């Protein structure tokens, strides 16, 4: 039958668009590594009638120090967690990660205090094991990270890494290294659209080009302030679409924050099976990140990663 009424599709006329960042191979590379681009959206997340942009990607988390792992989250990797290269390989080959995110926790001065040169060797091993783009973080210790990331960047000049992370009070060393080695850079800010913008301005004033910046406005996990991140992300995306150039940068959300909630990993009979619950705890955090504007997720549980990969394809109508 012929419908009597026509329901309009309320498509917004946005003037701006999210920029794109390419990760993976660089011109100096041997050409073996995949190049993946993120960003490029011309509408709010997953509204195909406004413009989807590049596919949202998933980076699987690998840590080079097993002392603080949450066992239930990484259980499917078995012994591979003792070898970052093997761990990375399993992420890519078995669990469909688009990228690998390597955290050099071994460099922590309060832990193993591994020297930057050793950490850089670990990065090279991971790069040799997989053909996908790689994100590298230090240990979260400001002074040490500056030295570690400089060493990593210099050791991997052939590949286009994504380096974490530039912060308001610690961005110069890492930015300089990224610029000289043509690496992309994560601009971190703490749950505030103005700080996110400020961080992008600081980097661009320092000389980092927009095509090399991915911003991380801090994704709080489910039950741990997720709603703040959800709204900050939405506001960032809207500002970008309305033409704020300093926010037209692809967004990274580290959804491993989900594991900070005790519901994600604590055994409790009334809460159901912990494996299933943990998977969905991180997957729900990931979905909230995606729906609010994330271009790139860092994920810990391969079970959650598989849910999210499928959800991304499905949200994009199979594209």
């Amino acid at each position, binding site marked *: 039958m012929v*419908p009597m009424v026509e329901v309009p599709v309320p498509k917004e006329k946005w003037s701006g668009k999210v920029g794109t960042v390419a990760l993976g191979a660089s011109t100096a590379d041997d050409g073996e590594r995949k190049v993946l681009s993120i960003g490029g959206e011309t509408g709010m997340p*997953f509204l195909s009638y406004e413009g989807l942009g590049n596919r949202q990607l998933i980076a699987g988390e690998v840590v080079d120090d097993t002392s603080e792992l949450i066992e239930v989250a990484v259980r499917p990797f078995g012994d591979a967690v003792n070898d970052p290269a093997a761990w990375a390989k399993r992420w890519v080959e078995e669990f469909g990660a688009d990228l690998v995110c390597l955290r050099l926790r071994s460099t922590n001065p309060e832990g193993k205090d591994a020297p930057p040169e050793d950490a850089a060797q670990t990065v090279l091993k991971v790069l040799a094991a997989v053909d996908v783009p790689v994100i590298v973080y230090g240990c979260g210790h400001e002074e040490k990270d500056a030295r570690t990331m400089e060493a990593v960047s210099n050791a991997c000049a052939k590949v286009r890494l994504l380096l974490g992370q530039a912060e308001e009070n610690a961005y110069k060393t890492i930015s300089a290294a990224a610029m000289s080695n043509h690496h992309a850079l994560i601009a971190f800010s703490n749950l505030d659209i103005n700080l996110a913008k400020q961080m992008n301005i600081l980097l661009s004033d320092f000389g980092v080009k927009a095509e090399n910046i991915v911003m991380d406005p801090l994704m709080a996990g*489910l039950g741990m302030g997720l*709603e703040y991140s959800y709204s900050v992300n939405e*506001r960032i995306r809207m500002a970008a679409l309305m033409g704020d150039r300093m926010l037209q940068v692809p967004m990274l959300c580290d959804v491993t924050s989900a594991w900070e909630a005790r519901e994600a990993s604590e055994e409790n009979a009334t*809460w159901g099976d912990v494996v*299933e*619950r943990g998977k*969905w705890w991180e997957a729900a955090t990931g979905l909230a990140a995606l729906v609010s504007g994330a271009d790139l997720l860092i994920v810990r549980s391969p079970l959650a990663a598989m849910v999210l990969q499928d*959800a991304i394809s499905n949200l994009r109508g199979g594209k």
Partner: protein
Amino acid sequence: MPTAIEIFKLLPKKNCGKCNFPTCLAFAMQLASSKAKLADCPYVTEEAKAKLEASSAPPIRLITIGAGENKVEIGDETELYRHDKKFFHATRYAIAISDQASDREVSVKLRRAADLRFERVGQILALDMLAVRNDSRDPATFAEMVKRVSRESALPLILMSQDPEAVRAAASATNLSRPLIYAATFENIEGMAAAAKELKYPLAVRHDDLNGLADLVEKVKAAGVEDIVLDLGAEDLQQTLERNTIVRKNAIRKTFRGLGYPILTNVIGRERGMAMALISTMKYGGIVLMEDLDPAHAVPLFVLRQNIYTDPQVPIQVKAGLYPINNPDKDSPILFTVNFSLTYFTVAGDIEKSRMPAWLLVVDTEGLSVLTAFSAGKLTSETVAEALRSTEAMAKSGKGLLIIPGMLSRMSGKLQEATGLKVIVGPKESSGIPKLLRSL
């Protein structure tokens, strides 16, 4: 509510004063602020009346299902983004019971429904509704099952049937309080609309094409049913997100008024049911209808709803008090923080990570963060000292150490005086807590 100018355009512009205001414009301004009634103008046309009534109706109709303390209210939303104000009526979750289920199966489901109840930051998170599904296609069997479920559970009901006779049979078998009929389609619209009107039950209308759905809704309204819920027939995540967004945005922006009703997402039999439930919770779903809900899924789903429907202006507060973390004893230090939930969770999480036993004193700052509470005078050496007293913290920790947030270093002198404890200024970022605790 329409603006004074919008109203003015619809008035006769006679400026005759019969409404007791000197001009039509003056009258329009009073109307806009609800200080006058349209009926006071004798010349206003029927057409203008209808238009004004339509434009002063809420963009999305409020629908009530059930009655009493368990009743469910959905709709009456005004925002597209929670940061613009807030989302008002949280997504409600329902699970289904087949009218062909065995006695045991029914008991198990009812037990489960009652058990899906958790407390988190002082709020109860629970399953909201039960649906009874007419798999038997037999009105009498359906009526029996509805009767049983309504006897054994106080949750509002959804009557899932294609058959108006089954709905009527259920209604006459037992005394139901405003169950939702699910659903009217092109196949059964006349019978369903008639049953809904007669029984005064809200009616769900289902169609997988929005134009057709709008058509159906018009027919249902023409039959005299006003309380309508929409099932957009979404089968996957993209359809859930896009259709929900189109319907919500059209209603709120008033670009199309025919679908100004709350949305029901039926995930029964869908491959990505849990993900659909999560997406619908974030994106404008009023009800999510599921076959079943495992607690391992319910906990993340309910917490997501709690997060999304938190009023951005009124942060969730944690109960003030003294919280033991990592089994503290007399030798463990006291740390204090505010009752802003995000701060509490971060600090508590970082103490847990340190694996060092400690007492965490949560001071009531009306949900304000450390710096805001301090600037607003709600976090002073006196309020902290009072919190220490009222929780008898010193009887539990004999160590004589109080660790304060790094941003409150200015308070340390006064606090030392007021409490007699040795004050240690903690890190500015909570992430530094493990290091500090290990160094004590």
